[in-house]
């Protein structure tokens, strides 16, 4: 991944489905509301540990939440 490449995510939708505010999700993840906002708006890509935390919280796989638009490498 180089600078400028965009990874899209479904965080806002998943959060809305649970009726959580950004602060609520941030608190559950151990990050700030600003961090959740930055991830949702694509201004910041989370670290791998945080992506795993997110996936675990939503009961999904990381690639079901984040999409770099390149599909599966082994497919």
């Amino acid at each position, binding site marked *: 991944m180089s600078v400028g490449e965009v990874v899209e995510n479904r965080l806002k939708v998943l959060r809305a489905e649970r009726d959580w505010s950004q602060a609520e999700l*941030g608190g559950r993840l151990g990050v700030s509301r600003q*961090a959740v906002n930055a991830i949702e708006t694509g201004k910041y890509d989370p670290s791998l540990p945080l992506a795993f935390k997110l996936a675990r919280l939503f009961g999904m796989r990381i690639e079901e939440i984040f999409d770099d638009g390149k599909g599966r490498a082994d497919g």
Partner: protein
Amino acid sequence: MADEDQIGTTLERRHRRQYWLIMGGGLLVSLVIGWAMGASTGPEGTIPAGLAILFVAALALLLGAGTWIYFRKVDELEWANNLFASFWGFNAFILAFPAWLILWKGRLVPEPDMFTIYIGAALVALAAYLWKRYR
């Protein structure tokens, strides 16, 4: 359960409160050191040697402990913002002195002033941080 539904919000609020407490505490201690330095500066702009050592020790302790506490409390976005700001501040610092020196040797500007370069680099870092955080 309402409490269970709001557990994240409560934790986030607590983290935010701790963040501003650290920032406020750091600012307060800095102001006290700055005031003490100003109060102990003589008419010729000098500070007694013992006090000078004491101030440097206090500054090193404040910066070291403050940075350690700060980075233990903030999240990875804040780390990234600080890394970005440090990158630009550091680059401004290492560019400013040689550039100013060369221009001075070309008799285009007055002699380089380290205090101006220091403040300038800090301002560049601050601007980079604010841009990254609030863009």
